[in-house]
């Protein structure tokens, strides 16, 4: 029953994203066709050509039919054609997706582990000068825009020290799969992942610290002391086990933020993921591409959240029923 509700919930999110995508070109200023063809083509079109294009794209059909055509198109993998690439949007997106997943996967894993470990440690030192100082430091890190950190990283490690390549995702000269290629990919991951991770780590650290503090204030902690439990046992078996719930939720909410972060970071490093794709789409006014990427980003966030929600009852027995 719980699971059914979660799945329904995300189906609704997807429906909203689809409707939004469908509605945007139709409610934005101008005609939908303006968003489908390059400007120079549009200007030089005769009324007959215009009508023919309208027919070709099915824009002369009733709205309801247009919507059902659009939805069935999306589900059969047809996201339209990208004007700037001259290829189906789906193919363009698929070629870029692995890089973004690679970037986000590392950032997610590192920030989750480092953030929770440091946050739990901070809760242990809570109230001390060290704790407050580190908190303020972490706040500053979490407040600096990640793309700015990325620019500074390039200045330091590429321009001045020359240690790391600042451009692209893989060496252009190496054979994919060769050792040189793999090490090149790894080197090019370091700076984007760092920029993305710093921001997210700060966030998770603060959550972990406050979750531990709240857990340590509960009545069951007093009772555990009255049982004769040692402070170590209280910290791990009782407080941390309960603090896991908000930490987990926060890490999962962070996936959405990471998608946003990756988008900007990729631009700085010219990293060929879907983030730089969306920016290229904006520059080229390639609306089909934008919509496709947005839909895909939504779908991945929805899938990640769905997995997170389905996993939550494993951690929290109270979420298993009702």
């Amino acid at each position, binding site marked *: 029953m719980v699971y059914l509700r979660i799945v329904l*919930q995300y189906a609704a*999110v997807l429906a*909203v*994203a689809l409707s*939004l995508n469908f509605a*945007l070109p139709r409610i*934005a*200023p101008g005609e939908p066709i303006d968003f489908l063809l390059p400007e120079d083509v549009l200007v030089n079109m005769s009324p007959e050509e215009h009508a023919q294009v309208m027919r070709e794209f099915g824009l002369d059909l009733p709205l309801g039919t247009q919507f059902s055509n659009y939805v069935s198109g999306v589900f059969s993998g047809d996201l339209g054609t990208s004007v700037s690439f001259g290829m189906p949007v789906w193919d363009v997106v698929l070629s870029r997706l692995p890089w973004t997943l690679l970037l986000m996967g590392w950032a997610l894993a590192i920030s989750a582990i480092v953030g929770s470990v440091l946050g739990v440690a901070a809760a242990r030192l809570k*109230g001390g000068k060290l704790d407050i100082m580190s908190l*303020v430091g972490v*706040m*500053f890190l979490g*407040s*600096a*825009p990640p*793309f*700015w950190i990325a*620019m*500074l990283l*390039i*200045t330091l490690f*590429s*321009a001045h020290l020359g240690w790391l390549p*600042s451009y692209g995702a893989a060496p252009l000269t190496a054979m994919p799969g060769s050792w040189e290629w793999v090490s090149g990919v790894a080197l090019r991951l370091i700076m984007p992942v760092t920029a993305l991770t710093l921001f997210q780590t700060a966030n998770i650290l603060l959550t972990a610290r406050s979750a531990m503090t709240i857990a*340590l*204030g*509960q*009545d*069951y902690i*007093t*009772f555990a*002391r*009255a*049982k*004769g*439990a*040692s402070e170590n*046992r209280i910290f791990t*078996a009782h407080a941390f*086990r309960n603090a896991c719930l908000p930490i987990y939720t926060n890490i999962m909410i962070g996936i*959405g933020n990471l*998608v*946003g*972060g990756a*988008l*900007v970071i990729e631009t700085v490093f010219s990293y060929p993921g879907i983030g730089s794709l*969306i*920016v290229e789409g*904006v*520059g080229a*006014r390639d*609306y089909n591409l*934008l919509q496709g*990427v947005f839909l895909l*980003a*939504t779908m991945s*966030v929805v899938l990640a959240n769905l997995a997170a929600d389905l996993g939550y009852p494993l951690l929290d*027995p*109270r979420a298993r*029923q009702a």
Partner: protein
Amino acid sequence: MSDTVLSNRIYGAPGRRALTAEQVIRLTGLTILTLMIGAAVFGPMLLAYGAQEIVCQPFATPSAAHLLGCNDAGQDILAGVLTGGRISLSVGVVTALLTTALATLVAVGAAYYGGLTDQLAMRVVDVIMSLPFLPLVIVLGTFLGASLPVQVLVITLVMWAQPVRELRSQVLSLRSAEHVEAARAMGGGFAWIARKHLLPDLAPLIVPQFVRVAHNAILIESSLSFLGLGDPLRKSWGTILFHANARTAFLTESWVWWILPPGIAIALAVVAFALMGYGIGDDKTPRADRNARALDDVEKEPSDGILSLQHVSIAYRTGQGTVPAVRDVSLELRQGELLGLVGESGSGKSTLGMSLLRLLPPAGKITGGGVWLDGENLFSAEDARLRALRGSRIALVPQSAMNALNPVRTIGWQISEALRIHGRQGGAAQVARLLQLVQIDPSRAAAFPHELSGGMRQRVVIAIALANDPKVLIADEPTTGLDVLVQAEIMALFAHLRTRLGIAIVFITHDLPLIAAEADRLAIMEKGVIVETGTPGDLERNASHPHTRALFASVPRLHAPRIWQRGPHAGDRILTLENVSMSFNAGFAARLRGARPVHALRGVSVELRRCEVLGLVGGSGSGKTTVARLSLGQYAPDNGAVLFDGKPLHRASGTPVHMIFQDPYQSLSARMSVMEAVAEPLRIAGRTCKPADIATALRDVHLPDDNVFLNRRVGSLSGGQRQRVAFARARITRPQVILADEPTSMLDQSIRLEILNLLEDMRRDLGTSILFITHDIVLARHFCDRVAVMRDGVVVELGQADDVALNPVHEYTSRLIEAVEHPSSARIS
């Protein structure tokens, strides 16, 4: 952390003394932000060039004329950064204002109306929160065109959802707060309740939301502008970085003056907001009890008890200095004895009890004395030794057993842990044995605490306390908050375990009748001192201390002559419930939430006559409160009719029915002055309220009516005074019917009868009829003319109060009486 900082964190900074660390942090944030706003507003006026003017060579390095050099177009970067601040900061602040206003409106509306509205709003919030917001903002921004209003609009659209979720849960808890319930019961509508009750309480929670949105909005604006989606005609910090990035400034020396300043500006502004929100709205009260520090050992006076308290003193640090809570208490507990430690709120009984395990709240400190368990001083024991004794030789059954169990561990795990900590076998067999000891089916070992009833959870806690066969058990209000019949079950379990295991028990309680029926000896505590000890019988007959006498005198006895004598009345019916049925969670919204329907009332018929007191008696879940809500017109019954004076009850009919709530600490808003609280029902009804009427109402309930008292905050009054204020505001409406929902159960025993006398005064003076809701059938016998006994939504017995209480017919009535008279004879159901 130093002691002052610690106590300030708990009690708030006293007066004009040094600021707390958190206040310093928040002030720092405010200062940074003020300086930045000042620089953005006035800075550009002081410069010779505008941000868009071409005034120097492209890529010029810093010089006296251009402190931060120039960009690729030959524009002064300092002018750009200062002017950019105007855009970036105002986008942040305007967005935050819009977002918080929208979120507050939606949250208050959703939580207030509840049901389907709430479900719908929250599903929309869920959907928006699941969309990746930066891609969404980019797509929206691209389609709608890049301009400042679009940026603000789009950021608002994606940001309002999260504050709604957080504020709504706060509004929900506020809405069910009793002072809001009370305002609704007086007929207050959405506008009144939102304005007078919800928003003032919500204001401190809105601030951190505002701060967080502003913080995020500045970051999003900078990201958008950085991606080239900012307003092309205006400079913001993000656009400066966009241009710097486009020109790969980070690969040249110009990064120092081109990239660093706008980035630092963004980070500073965001940090300023983060600092301002630091610690606001956090749960800062460390409630868990810490290990009190070991004292020096002191000489033990000879004694024969298993547990011997000698000259124990405890104090609390507060903002006003140290306040003693327990003063020089000495007490003996003998082998196998059940000792009742009885006191009213604030008497220090729980503090004393917890100190026996050296578990005190962080502000508490043992200041002297010693506690010897079998000759070993617990106050001077090393921490490791103390841990070895806790739970094995001396065990605790804590207050609020509901929260004493870890919610994410099975009860089997928690019982097993108690054994394993002290190096014993904690296998399934041992766990099963302990569960059987407290009469729980061993197969429930795999259950989690939330799957058990309140009584079962309390029994699990007792099983844990008994796991290692302790010599002494400290039970701190172990029955408080439980249903009457469950209280009796727990009492019976204690009595049974004591005879079977020979444990000595210190039973801390405010409930004198409950413990007097069972204890071997009572120790009466008042203001930190034990004023008298003795057997219950001795104390009842010849107490020497006036407090003890007052306590016993205030307990109504089942077989004593009636306390309130009234002549017979033959009034006509004023309030009638005809065959009323009512169920909850049967609607669509509830099913969406996955809630199970509850049949609160099934075919209930009762009638209240003029000038009569009708008692409604039953345990929790019997449906008595639902009857009250129906009589207020708050719900419409599913079936049957609620008639007032022969006509269907309408809320619009003025205030003929007034409700008095159980807990005066919650049913009056602590923020209001006495005058506002008393006048509230008249103000809601839109009637004029003369000061003389308020004064009269206050005199009638024996409260002062001078201006000083009228202007005091309700929050500064004692529980008894608050309940009197609640009565004054009932009187001022001259109600025809009063619904009194356990009006004395949260008050100290010694003032209960006085408070009931006020209710009786009102009945006599104004001819008011009273529907008196209680779980205490003995009290109902004295105070009510007739009594209806309810169980599971059905009236099982109805008759004259004396008949029902003295010669009960229904088996459930007899059990209610037994639960009060002989708690330990209860059987576990």
